[in-house]
C-alpha cells in the first residue's frame, strides 16, 4: 500500500466542503430544537434553498446574493411549518415530513428551466500573504467565505444560547413552555423565529450544495443531507461545538473512504460507505446508554405543541 500520494491537506479541504452543508443545516436545527420544536423538514428546506439560491445566483450573477436567496427561500418555506405547528397546532412530526415532500416537489417545479446552467463561481477568500503559505495557506486560508461564515455562525449560536438573555428565554421555551408562558414570554412567537432561523440555515446549506459543492442544479440533489443533519443534532447532544465535530467527522469519513478507494486500497467499499452511518449509530447508542445524561441534554418540551389555555 502506498499512502504517500494521499494528500492529507487536500483531503481536509475536500472534507470541509462536504461537511459544510450538513453543518449549516444542523446548527439551524439545533436552535429550532432548543426552542422545543422538532422540524423534520430539513431536507425539504435545504432543497428549496438549493434551488432558490441557484436561481438568485444565476439571475443576478452574484454568488453572494445567491446565498442570501437560498437563506430567504429556506426561511420562507419554514414559515409554512411554523404557522401550521405553532398557530394551527398540527403535529410536528407529520408536518415536518410533509414539508420535506412539499419542498422536494416545489424545488423540482421551480428548477425546471435551470437544468444545465452554470452558476457564477464563488471565489475563495484570499488573504494577502497568508493564502500563499505552503500547507498552512491551503489548510486555513483557501476556503470560500461560506465555510468561515459557518464556523462563525456556530460560535455565534453558542454565544447566543449560553451568554445572552434572549438565548436563555429561547431555551426556556424548549425546556418548559408553560413556565416561559407564565413569565410573560410569547412562546409561539419565539418558536416561530427559531423555526425561521432554522429554515434560513438549512436554505444556506442547500445553496452551498448547488452553488459550490456541485455547482449545478439537479432535482433531488441534496440526496438526504437534511436527514444526516437531523441525526448530527442528536449526535451532538444539542451542543453547538459538537455539531462541528459531528459534521466534520461525517464529511471526513465520506471523503476518506472515497480517497482510499481512489488510492486503490482494497477495502470493501460497501463497509466504507456504511461507516459514517455506523459511527453515528454507535455514538448515539453510547450517548443514550446513560439515560440521565442524555435526558439532561434533550430539551424537555421537544416536539410538544404549546397551546396557551388562558
Amino acid at each position, binding site marked *: 500500500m502506498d499512502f504517500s*500520494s494521499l*494528500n492529507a491537506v*487536500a*483531503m481536509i479541504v*475536500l472534507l470541509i466542503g*462536504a461537511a459544510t*452543508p450538513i453543518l449549516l443545516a444542523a446548527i439551524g436545527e439545533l436552535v429550532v430544537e432548543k426552542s422545543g420544536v422538532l422540524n423534520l423538514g430539513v*431536507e425539504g428546506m435545504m432543497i428549496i434553498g438549493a434551488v432558490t439560491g441557484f436561481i438568485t445566483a444565476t439571475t443576478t450573477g452574484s454568488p453572494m446574493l445567491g446565498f442570501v436567496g437560498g437563506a430567504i427561500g429556506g426561511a420562507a418555506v419554514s414559515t409554512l411549518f411554523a404557522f401550521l405547528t405553532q398557530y394551527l397546532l398540527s403535529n410536528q412530526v407529520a408536518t415536518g*415530513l410533509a414539508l*420535506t*415532500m412539499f419542498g*422536494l*416537489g416545489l424545488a*423540482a417545479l421551480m*428548477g*425546471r428551466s435551470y*437544468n*444545465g*446552467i*452554470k452558476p457564477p463561481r464563488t471565489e475563495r477568500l484570499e488573504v494577502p500573504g497568508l493564502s500563499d503559505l505552503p500547507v498552512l495557506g491551503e489548510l486555513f486560508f483557501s476556503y470560500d467565505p461560506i465555510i468561515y461564515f459557518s464556523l462563525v455562525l456556530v460560535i455565534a449560536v453558542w454565544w447566543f444560547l449560553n451568554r445572552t438573555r434572549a438565548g436563555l428565554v429561547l431555551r426556556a421555551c424548549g425546556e418548559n413552555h408553560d413556565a416561559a408562558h407564565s413569565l410573560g414570554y410569547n412562546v409561539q412567537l419565539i418558536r416561530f423565529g427559531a423555526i425561521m432561523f432554522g429554515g434560513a440555515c438549512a436554505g444556506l446549506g442547500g445553496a452551498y*450544495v448547488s452553488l459550490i*459543492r*456541485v*455547482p*449545478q442544479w*439537479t*432535482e*433531488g*440533489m*441534496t*440526496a*438526504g*443531507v437534511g*436527514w444526516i443533519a437531523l441525526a448530527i443534532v442528536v449526535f451532538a447532544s444539542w451542543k453547538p461545538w459538537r455539531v462541528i465535530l459531528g459534521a466534520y467527522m461525517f464529511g471526513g469519513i*465520506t*471523503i476518506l473512504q*472515497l*480517497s482510499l*478507494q*481512489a*488510492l*486503490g486500497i*482494497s477495502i*470493501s*467499499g*460497501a463497509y466504507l*460507505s456504511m461507516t459514517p452511518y455506523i459511527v453515528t449509530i454507535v455514538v448515539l447508542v453510547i450517548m443514550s446508554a446513560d439515560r440521565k445524561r442524555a435526558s439532561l441534554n434533550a430539551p424537555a418540551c421537544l416536539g410538544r405543541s404549546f397551546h396557551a389555555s388562558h
Partner: protein
Amino acid sequence: MKFTKTLAAAAAMGLALSGAATAGSHGGDPLKAGFIYVGPIGDLGWTWTHDQGRLAVEAEFGDSVETSYVESVPEGADAERVMSQMARSGVDIIFTTSFGYMDPTINVAADFPDVAFEHATGYKRAENVSTYSARFYEGRYVIGEIAGAMTETNKIGYIASFPIPEVVRGINSAYLAAKSVNPDVEFKVVWVYTWFDPGKEADAANALIEQGVDVIMQHTDSPAAMTIAEEKGVYAFGQASDMSAFGPNAQLTGIIDNWGPYYIERVKAVMDGTWESTDTWDGIAEGMVQFAPFSDKLPADVVARAEATIAAIGSGEFSPFTGPINKQDGSVWLAEGEVADDGTLAGLNFYVEGIDGELPN
C-alpha cells in the same frame, strides 16, 4: 430519505389511481403504459433518457396510448408496492427501469398475469416478464479507447455505482479498450454505492482528480462529475445523455441511451396482441447505444479510430470481449479469438487482468 420517497411515491400513486379509475370506466380505452423510474426525471441522465423513451411512445401513438410514470421509486419492497398499485390501476404494460427492480417485478408480475412487464437490465424472465437492456459495454469500449488516448497522466478514474454485472462489464470493456491504445494506462475505480447522489459523485470526482486522474468515466446518473471535471480542467464523458451543457470543455463525447424505438415496438406489440416474453439486448448496431457529438478537443486520429471502432462493432465484425483475455487473477477467460457469449457477459462478476483493486461483492 427512503421513507419520504416512499410516501411521495404512494401519494403520487394515489393521484394516479384516482385519475385512472375515472378514465377506466369508458369503453374503447387507450392503451395504458406505465413507467417506474429509480431517479428523478430531472437527473438528465439514466431516468431522463427513459422518460425521453416514454415521450417518444406518446408522440408515436398520440391519443391511442396513455402513459403514466412514478419517479424516484426506491429499489426493493417499496418498488413492489408502487408496481402493484400501478398494475391494479389498469395499466396494460409496465416498464420497470432499474436493475434493482428485478425481484419486485417478478413478484408483482405473478399477481397480474394479464399485464405485460418489461424489466430493464435484469436477467429474470417469466411468461409476462420480458427483459431488455442495451449493450452499453460496446459504447464503453469506444469511450475507453478515447480515454486511453487522451490521458496524459495515464490514470483514468471510474466512478462506479454498484458491483453488478452491468457495471463490471462497463469497467472491463473500457479498461480493455484504454489498454489497447495505451499500455501504461491505470484504472482507479471508486464505488459510491448509489445511482444518484450529486454530492457524493462530486466528492468521488474530486478524490480521483486529487490522485492524478485526468480523464473521468462514470456509471452513476447525475452530471455532477462532469461539472467537477469542467471546473478542474480534466476530461469526462456524458453518461446516458449528452451532458455537454455541464462540461462544454470537459465532455469528449458521451454514451446516449436511446430507448424510444424499443418502447414503441413493445407498446405496439401489446396493441396488436403479439406481445410475448423476450430478452432483448441491443447495442450500437440497432441504435440503442448512440454517441454524443465528438468534442473538438479530440485529435483527428482519435476521432478516426473511434469511428472505425463504432463501425466495426456496429457491423458485428468486432466484439469488445474478444480473446485473448485473462481474468484478474491471471487465469484464462477467453482464448485467442474467442468471443464471450451473452450468458457469461450477463453474469460477469470479475475484473479482467490488469485492473487493480478488489471487486466488491
